[in-house]
């Protein structure tokens, strides 16, 4: 009825090519963003910031990055945790070496450093693919974490090998450190996420994204029609690592505030992000968000219901959560192997035809 294309006439090319061609879609997204930017900062408290919103934003960015590489370009990577560590340590070294540097620049530069590292570790992708590439990227995961543990320069020779985020300000308001107000850290992360989600969406719709998808679908055919595998694969690694680096920097600077490489950036993190994009939907921007939200919020939700609401023992709940999340993952993948984003896509198709389906 109200969710339809008919009656919404596009009279220009830009109108025709916009991200959300359906007016209703467009307004919902704009309203959602407006709500996130304008209303949420007034409602947010420490708990919502630290346990719900900031983690979801940070992990969404990481999922977005991996989705570019795996979902759009078809290169499986298990090095996400290591690349997040690069972002985190880059931001730490930058901000401790140049305390006056603007935080936006620190975070962006951390992404840049990670992109360079990503290109180096992406080189094997030119020769190997599939499972073998996954194993090669696994090496980056272990190497990078080992490196940050081994070389004291990276953690400024601190006694415990921990890195701690110093207090930093944006427009005079703390966005890292213990005194940062929840709304400020939230808005800081949200800005990055919204801007880079928009960039990712446009990248994947443009020439670069199409060449990634060509490589993903059949690399030999793509090469024959003139898509250079070297440039395409390495650009996917660079862009993906850039995103993951930014998310690692935010993860450390804004969310955790202190980190040690083995625990904060271990192999589980690489798997977590991979699961996010598989659950959410490979090759979908929206899927990255919904996958991250699923993997981060479900345990918190179950914990709140079962421990906070029902008063069950914490260890029982911890085990039940494992089972429930596992069960849910299986359920969703059986119902829709292409992820939650596909469910949403199907819903939208149905909505367009409603109430008169064929």
């Amino acid at each position, binding site marked *: 009825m109200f969710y339809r294309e008919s009656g919404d006439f596009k009279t220009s090319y830009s109108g025709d090519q916009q991200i959300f061609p359906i007016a209703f879609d467009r307004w*919902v997204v704009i309203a*959602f963003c407006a709500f996130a930017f304008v209303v949420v900062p007034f409602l947010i408290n*420490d*708990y919502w910031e*630290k*346990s*719900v919103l900031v*983690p*979801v934003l940070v992990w969404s960015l990481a999922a977005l990055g991996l989705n570019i590489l795996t979902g759009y370009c078809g290169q499986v990577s298990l090095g996400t945790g290591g690349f997040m560590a690069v972002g985190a340590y880059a931001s730490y070294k930058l901000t401790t070496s140049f305390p006056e540097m603007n935080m936006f620049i620190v975070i962006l530069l951390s992404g840049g450093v990670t992109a360079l590292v990503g290109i180096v570790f992406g080189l094997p992708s030119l020769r190997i693919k599939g499972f073998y590439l996954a194993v090669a990227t696994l090496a980056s995961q272990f190497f990078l974490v080992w490196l940050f*543990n081994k070389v004291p320069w990276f953690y400024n020779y601190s*006694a*415990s*090998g*921990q890195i*701690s985020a*110093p*207090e930093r300000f944006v427009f005079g308001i703390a966005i890292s*450190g*213990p*005194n940062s107000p929840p709304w400020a850290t939230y808005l800081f992360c949200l800005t990055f996420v919204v801007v880079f989600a928009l960039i990712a969406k446009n990248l994947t719709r443009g020439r670069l994204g199409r060449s990634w998808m060509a490589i993903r679908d059949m690399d030999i055919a793509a090469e024959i029609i003139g898509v250079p595998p070297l440039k395409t694969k390495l650009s996917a690694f660079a862009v993906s690592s850039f995103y993951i680096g930014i998310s690692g920097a935010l993860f450390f600077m804004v969310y*955790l*505030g*202190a*980190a*040690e490489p*083995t*625990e*904060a950036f*271990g192999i589980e993190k690489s798997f977590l992000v991979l699961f996010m994009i598989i659950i959410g939907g490979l090759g979908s921007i929206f899927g990255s*968000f*919904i996958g991250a*939200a*699923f993997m981060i*919020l*479900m345990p*918190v*939700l179950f*914990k*709140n*219901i079962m*421990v*906070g*609401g029902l008063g069950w*023992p*914490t*260890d029982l*709940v*911890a*085990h039940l959560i494992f089972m429930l999340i596992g069960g849910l993952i299986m359920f969703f993948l059986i119902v829709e192997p292409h992820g*939650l984003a596909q469910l*949403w896509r199907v819903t939208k198709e149905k909505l367009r035809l409603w109430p008169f389906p064929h």
Partner: protein
Amino acid sequence: MKHTKLAAAAVAMAMTLGANTASADLVFPSLDYRTGPYAPNGIPFADGYSDYFTLLNERDGGIGGVPARVLPCETGYNTEKGVECYESTKGEGALVYQPLSTGITYQLIPKATADGIPVHSMGYGRTSAANGKVFSHIFNYPGTYWDAASIIVKHIADQEGGDLKDKTIALVYHNSAYGKEPIRTLEELAKKHGYNLTLLAVDHPGQEQKSQWLQIRRERPDYVLMWGWGVMNQVAIQEAANIRYPMDHFIGVWWSASENDVLPAGDAANGYKAVAFHGVGSGFGVYDDLKKHVVDTGKAAGDGSNLGTVLYNRGMYAAMLASEAARTAQEIHGTADITPAMMRDGMEALNLTEARMAELGLANFGPEVSVDCANHGGPGLGAIQQWDAAAGTWSLITEFTGADRDVVDALIAEDSAAFAAENNITPRDCGA
């Protein structure tokens, strides 16, 4: 988006459900872990912590007449879950946090200080937090890792007749902030005593240690020290037994010294040593009360099988120190319903005498503890305990002795000054 909103709505619902249970009582959150690779050590500690408060409620009607409420939150020894636990419990009026994880402690030091809630990292966490002038809300009495390292080296020196020149000491450590803590002290002591230090890192969770023990087998260091936790302890002791390393030359920190760590190796673990900051076994008066009021009435936490084990004792000790601090705070401020800020004052004024410990049914359980504004690390005393595999018991084989204060205090001053400079903290004036 649909799902996010649904989830958010449900979380909001769950949160309001949780908030309704708050009432006028003293809240002691227990950031424990009963699952994961560290559960064998986390469970007895959590049981002891919880049972002691249950005992106070059942026997004395709480602390100063106000019932204590333990708020368990499962962290799985994971820092992110630890942060979630902290944020979800602090709103309920949490008086003191005991994260039982050095990683989570590091995380909470700035946050809790900003929120004005004290953290008691009893014998773990950041060692230099012993300097109360810099760390106003962080306490790590009755002893620190650096005290432990120094006490162990002292014990080795005693065994070797006072001369450690050209001896080799290896440190097998958990490759995390926790395991790395003693390194600096051991290096300083190596300079002083002239021994060689070999460092062997074991990665989380510590199941895989073959190469480290192969190196020990090849190099045969005179002593092996261990900074391990969870499943790492059991594996290390088993590996040491496999290479027939002399167990009485293998000494752990107080976190590598529970029954769960030595039992899997069986008789081969006989003679394994560790440093301790409190007594062992269940031969204390408080156990009669625990049995009568908690175990027999079916109110024990967990399955009630951990009573008298080392880590149960430690959890109980932590709860006892917390409740005594709360009592001190009630006396200072003249109110039974204390706030976290009052609790902090109570912790800083804590003076636990032997007479008071005897009154609590813990005679000779541990050294007297007194804390003041400048010293948050307490007495820093430790004894060596040894495992008797045939009897299945630990026993203290030395008196409680102090650390090499010259070395440790200088390091604490240096590290806390670095922290103060990094975070723009002006050290408090403690009037001394």
